[in-house]
């Protein structure tokens, strides 16, 4: 971190409604300087609304925003000169080339150093196609051009909404390296993502939002350590008995959500036992001793588990639902 203890971004009581629908309900974010911050939440949780508020596209109903240690209000748009942003899908003039689009973007807002555009075209691997019209770009290329656009003014704070959208695996790796490099050089990266595994690899700090509120925030490592769980899959008939058997060991949640219910409709249920992952065998043994045989067992400090737990099982992808059904966690064992 560049300046330990300082915040690159902070929101206090941020509130925003669209008509009668409350999108953000008193959001309090604290993003330390010089970190990669993973901003997670299910669809419709308020991630993009937050991004729009942070970039002045929307006006908050209540609450305050601080960017790089100073308040950000409508009247102080120049605060954004030190911020680079990619909000939602990247937006370009389709009839212009990639380079011409960056040229056009450079004319807005903060001044752009000479030679910066060429440097960024190299960085995002678009130099070869820089003369081509953007209308002929793939989604991944547009995304890379969008990231280049966000980096134009060499910002201290980078706000990226789903930056991995459309990128191929090589592109994701390259983006990860770029973002890590930026954070290492003292810049702050605030990125929302649905790719939890990607966030787990990349982020230093994580904030999880659900229904417009921050439900957890902190260094990823400590959150995962604190939130270790063991999950067992049992038949519905055994669920109540299994729960009473496991309650003496640790608190148990029955997660009968879509994300935790086997896709094959076998009538089974997941139980989440809040114990350290190292105690998985103890949980399994307790069930087996009572004649309950788990058809799936997983344990660990997976960000996806934490995410599902905190967001009430509002899974962010079908893939995750299938994955849980297969009990294929990092330390999974078939019961």
């Amino acid at each position: 971190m560049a300046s330990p203890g300082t915040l690159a971004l902070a929101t206090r009581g941020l509130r925003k409604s669209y008509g009668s629908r409350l999108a953000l309900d008193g959001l309090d974010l604290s993003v330390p300087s010089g970190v990669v911050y993973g901003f997670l939440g299910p669809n419709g949780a308020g991630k993009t609304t937050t991004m729009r508020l942070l970039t002045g596209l929307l006006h908050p109903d209540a609450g305050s925003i601080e960017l790089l240690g100073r308040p950000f209000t409508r009247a102080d748009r120049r605060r954004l000169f030190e911020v680079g942003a990619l909000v939602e899908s990247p937006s370009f003039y389709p009839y212009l080339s990639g380079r011409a689009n960056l040229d056009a973007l450079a004319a807005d807002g903060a001044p752009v150093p000479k030679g910066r555009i060429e440097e960024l075209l190299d960085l995002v691997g678009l130099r070869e196609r820089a003369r081509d019209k953007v209308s002929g770009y793939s989604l991944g290329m547009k995304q890379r051009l969008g990231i280049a656009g966000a980096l134009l003014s060499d910002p201290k704070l980078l706000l990226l909404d789903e930056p991995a959208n459309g990128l191929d695996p090589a592109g994701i790796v390259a983006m990860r390296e770029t973002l890590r490099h930026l954070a290492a050089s003292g810049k702050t990266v605030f990125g929302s993502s649905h790719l939890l595994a990607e966030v787990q690899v990349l982020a230093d700090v994580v904030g999880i939002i659900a229904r417009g509120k921050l439900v957890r925030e902190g260094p990823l490592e400590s959150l995962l350590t604190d939130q270790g769980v063991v999950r067992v899959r049992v038949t519905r008939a055994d669920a109540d008995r299994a729960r009473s058997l496991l309650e003496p060991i640790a608190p148990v949640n029955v997660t009968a959500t879509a994300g935790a219910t086997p896709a094959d409709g076998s009538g089974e249920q997941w139980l989440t036992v809040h114990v350290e992952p190292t105690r998985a065998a103890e949980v399994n043994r307790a069930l087996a001793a009572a004649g309950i045989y788990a058809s799936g067992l997983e344990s660990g400090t997976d960000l996806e588990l934490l995410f599902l737990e905190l967001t009430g099982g509002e899974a962010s992808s079908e893939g995750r639902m299938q994955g849980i059904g297969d009990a294929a966690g990092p330390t999974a064992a078939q019961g």
Partner: protein
Amino acid sequence: MRIFASGLRKLIRRPASLVSVGLLVGLLGLILIAAATVGQNGAGRGAQNARALITFPGAYDLILSFMFGLGGLVAVIYGAAVAGSEWSWGTLKTAVARGESRTRYMLATFGAIMVMVAVGLAITLALGIGLAVVAAGIAGISTSGISDADTLQRLPAMAARGWFAVVEQAGLGFAIATLARSQRAGIGAGIAFDFGEGFASIFFPDIIKYMPFAVARASIDTGTQGGFGGGGNGAVSQALEPDTALLLVAIWLVGSLIVTVLFTERAEITG
């Protein structure tokens, strides 16, 4: 200045710019060649009228009337396309997220449109004169009137008034598309307003004469033989003095830009 220059570069490369000028020049060329063909092959009243159209200095009237008449409608569409695409393509969003002033961005963009309209009209005028000379040649008419001193003397002033009237109409399209936040909706609404105003003038001429498209037409109507005025709303446009109409053109233009700026400043950009 950076945004204005950038806006100009964007518009120069924009296919709609070329299409707009191409449409004007192409249609004007068709009319002139059609007049030449009719004028070449007959001695009746129709042929005489056709020959009059392509005989200088009268041909200037045809060219300018066409430019400022159809040009006004093209300008509405062009202004709406430029403003609407800023919302549809999300490029306004990107500029705002970079800390750019919304007001400055929209005004600079419109400034670029004003320049493009001037360039487009100048190209149309130059090519129109060239095509009229060709048409006169086809019909076997002398082009000696091309250097008519009286016409050439008032041509710059008329061109300037015409440009201003066309710019006002581009401003209307610009404002409508901003309110609609959409390219297509802006273009559709702009065309509908233009035709709607012409239609409504049949029933409410005393009101419609103050409306934006009517005052634009009236402002370039000098009462000369060809009128230099465009479109088929002569009865309406004559209701206002050209100078009064010009003042109203300025008011409508400023009003359109104020609406554009206020709406853009207050808008929540969600697209």
